[in-house]
């Protein structure tokens, strides 16, 4: 069994390391530094940390102002409050102004669990990726979240990353390469490709095990960057396997699945099945109960792969 760590922890720990290396990094929180793990930075660098209170719009605007003086602000809150409540500020202050601000938010997906639908962000990937200038990341595990945190600090311009409250199995290694916009094939296979982000990469690996029992070799692609999407990886998957399943802990519309389908429709049409939350809100429950209810498990992905394979043969 893999070690279980929330991706927010990977972010919080790496941000402290980066804070030591770069005194331009400042962190702004909407009173969510405990939940987002920005508190690690607060404790290490109290002079470069501001809790601006429960005021996400203000957090985003203030971050933009700081960035204009050469700071690299990280703006942190729950994904749902930041991306939904402060959307106009992200659009104008961050994206339209092309501000060098990194928005990193926890509590994405149904695995938020018991807090229920109001806190479970299921639309952030969709509404962030339609904004010009911003890059959108959903890491598969804590190690990848740390690498993404470092990578986004190294580029100039807006970045959004979602992290999880729930512990995710650690499935990548420290030595694995990470590059924003470059998908990773985490398991080879020639019959069908499972393209996933976040926790769904792990579920897809398990789905590939299930499929192997039926003699199906599934390729698993970790599409940690939703924008810019790795067009080449999608084209290669379509060409070499002829069928795709996308899987995300997000509304089935507008997120990873849509981004993959947009590429496939234009460049390499193949049957695509999509795993995601089907146009509904979440609810209270344990992460496992909710993953089961919303059909976000390995068995669901394997079943979708069978469907895609049938369409491929038809």
């Amino acid at each position: 069994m893999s070690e279980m760590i929330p991706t927010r922890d990977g972010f919080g720990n790496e941000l402290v390391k980066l804070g030591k290396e770069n005194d331009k990094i400042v962190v702004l929180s909407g009173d969510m530094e405990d939940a987002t793990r920005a508190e690690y930075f607060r404790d290490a660098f109290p002079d470069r940390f501001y809790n601006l209170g429960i005021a996400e719009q203000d957090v985003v605007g203030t971050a933009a102002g700081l960035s204009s003086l050469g700071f690299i602000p990280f703006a942190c809150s729950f994904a749902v409050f930041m991306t939904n409540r402060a959307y106009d500020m992200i659009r104008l202050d961050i994206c339209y102004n092309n501000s060098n601000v990194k928005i990193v938010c926890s509590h994405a997906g149904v695995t938020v669990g018991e807090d229920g639908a109001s806190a479970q962000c299921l639309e952030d990937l969709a509404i962030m990726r339609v904004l010009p200038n911003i890059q959108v990341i959903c890491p598969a595990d804590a190690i990848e979240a740390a690498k993404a945190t470092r990578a986004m600090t190294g580029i100039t311009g807006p970045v959004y990353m979602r992290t999880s409250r729930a512990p995710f199995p650690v499935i990548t290694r420290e030595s694995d390469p990470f590059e924003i916009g470059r998908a990773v094939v985490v398991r080879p296979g020639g019959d069908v490709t499972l393209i996933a982000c976040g926790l769904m990469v792990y579920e897809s690996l398990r789905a590939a095990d299930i499929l192997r029992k039926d003699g199906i070799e599934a390729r698993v692609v970790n599409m940690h960057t939703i924008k810019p999407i790795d067009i080449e990886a999608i084209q290669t998957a379509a060409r070499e396997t002829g069928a795709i399943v996308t899987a995300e802990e997000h509304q089935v519309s507008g997120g990873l699945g849509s981004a993959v389908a947009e590429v496939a429709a234009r460049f390499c049409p193949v049957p695509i099945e999509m795993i995601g939350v089907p146009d509904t809100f979440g609810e209270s429950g344990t992460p496992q109960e909710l993953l089961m209810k919303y059909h976000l498990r390995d068995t669901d992905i394997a079943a979708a792969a069978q469907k895609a394979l049938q369409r491929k043969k038809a």
Partner: protein
Amino acid sequence: MTTKCEDINVLKTKAVAYRKKVLQIIHAAGSGHPGGSLSAVEIFIALYHYKMAHRPDNPRWEDRDRCIVSKGHCSPVTYVTLADCGYFPESELLRFRKFGSPLQGHVHIRVPGVEFNTGSLGHGLSVANGIALGAKMLKKKIKTYCILGDGEIQEGSVWEAAMTAAHHKLDNLCAIVDYNKVQENGRTNDIKNLEPLPAKWASFGWQVVEVDGHDFHDLLCALDQFDTVSDKPYVILAHTVKGKGVSFMEGKSQWHGKAPKEDQLKAALAELDGIKTN
């Protein structure tokens, strides 16, 4: 070059010229927002020709004072001011709102001298806070000014920012409310009452001063008083008249966002030419 002018008569002459230019460029564009530009003319002149440290020959001078134009629809007066300061040639003004021009419909950083893209209301004060906070962290003497509309402060985000500025004692921040009493669809205090406005800002922890926003003596004194404030942000509530200087526009919400036609422009310019500056 740092601009500084203390001769009030010179500033008054500028105000007339600015109003004419504002109307001319909106007329040439065929659209734009005259009302809230005409009300803010003296505010812009007081900032850019008297108070702010800035260098039109070096727009990105790192120690310049910053002005965030939160009411981004008053792009006409913003651009007229910046052109007059020498940030770009006056001839560019006639390309306002035209395809391919940097002079976008709402205030835009492609125009030299502009600090931040605005246009959606209720954004600027948080951005100004960020600059003020950053200036303190860098131990720089930069002052940050933020020009807000009165209708704009119906946006809740303004009050989030107002709390932040006071909490962090941003005494290097000066907000100026262009209190022209009129918004797009009527009188501000009929639509959503702002009063008691001075008490609101004061209760949020700001040092408040009220001035006649068309009186240079008042405005310059208020701006100088900003330098003496400590441990608090400072707000100037500038009582102004929407459409100031053109009788058929004054106080009329219909002139919030409409271009004057040829005959209306002619009448407005004639009226402005009749104004005595002494």
